[in-house]
């Protein structure tokens, strides 16, 4: 599983990578996930519906990430614009 973060002037940045079935990796991913959310970011998992349509799943806790997800994208929290 890869954690990607959108950054201004850079595009996405790989911030963590690991196998959720390996205890050490999972712990590291959980910590990184919390750290990103504590910084105020939103997290989304790109996914497919059974019909094959692509969509995103917003996740607020590490447990909500599907075990087979290959990436989680972190992006700045939405704010009302002018």
């Amino acid at each position, binding site marked *: 599983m890869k954690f990607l973060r*959108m950054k*201004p002037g*850079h*595009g996405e940045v790989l911030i963590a990578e690991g196998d959720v079935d390996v205890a050490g990796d999972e712990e590291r991913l959980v910590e990184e996930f919390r750290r990103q959310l504590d910084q105020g970011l939103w997290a989304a998992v790109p996914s497919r519906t059974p019909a094959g349509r*692509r969509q*995103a799943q*917003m996740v607020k806790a590490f447990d909500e990430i599907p075990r087979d997800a290959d990436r989680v*994208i972190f992006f*700045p929290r*939405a704010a009302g614009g002018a």
Partner: protein
Amino acid sequence: MLLASIAIAVVIVALLWDLLLPPAREAFERYRARRAIVPNASYDPGRERRAEQRARELLRSCVNDEEWSMYRDLGFIRVWGGMAQAPKRPGAGLGDPRTGAPYAYLVYPHKPVVAYLPQTRELLNEYCVAFPDETRPYGSARLPDSDDVLAKWMALTGDERRLINTANMHLPGRQVDPKQVRRDLWRLSQWERDRLRRASRPEGSVPAP
């Protein structure tokens, strides 16, 4: 006599000191400023282009093929609304026949999300929303265009209600010219017609001139 000369010399030096010291100090500061190494903070257009290229690849890998082609060809993405009811127009009554009609959003980079009714092409609202990165790693809080579109797409398809509740809602025309939106809807319909025509054409056939 010697003592008097020394005293006069001391007075002259003291007077000259007051007169000459400030310009001398200023000249020295100017010299130091000229020699100082200034960090190069110049704008690098290549960096922005590379960032946008990466963002486009990420967007392409996340959205549906149709949505990617739409963005590549038209510069925006249409996202179908998933809530049970179409967003109400301010001032619309409870018996509004548009309630429950299929609705969609046009997602532009760094512009408000525009809600509309596809059947009538009626514009409903503008949702002004931004994704500012306050860490400002490169002096700007703005994501690359395609990242902004992807962030809106993920938020709309993942949790439409949260995004809509976060955004500032305005009547159509506040920031995005309604004429431009109607033109974009017309372009979208033409684009979809061409796409359908191409998809229904047998492989290898050539259209008549």
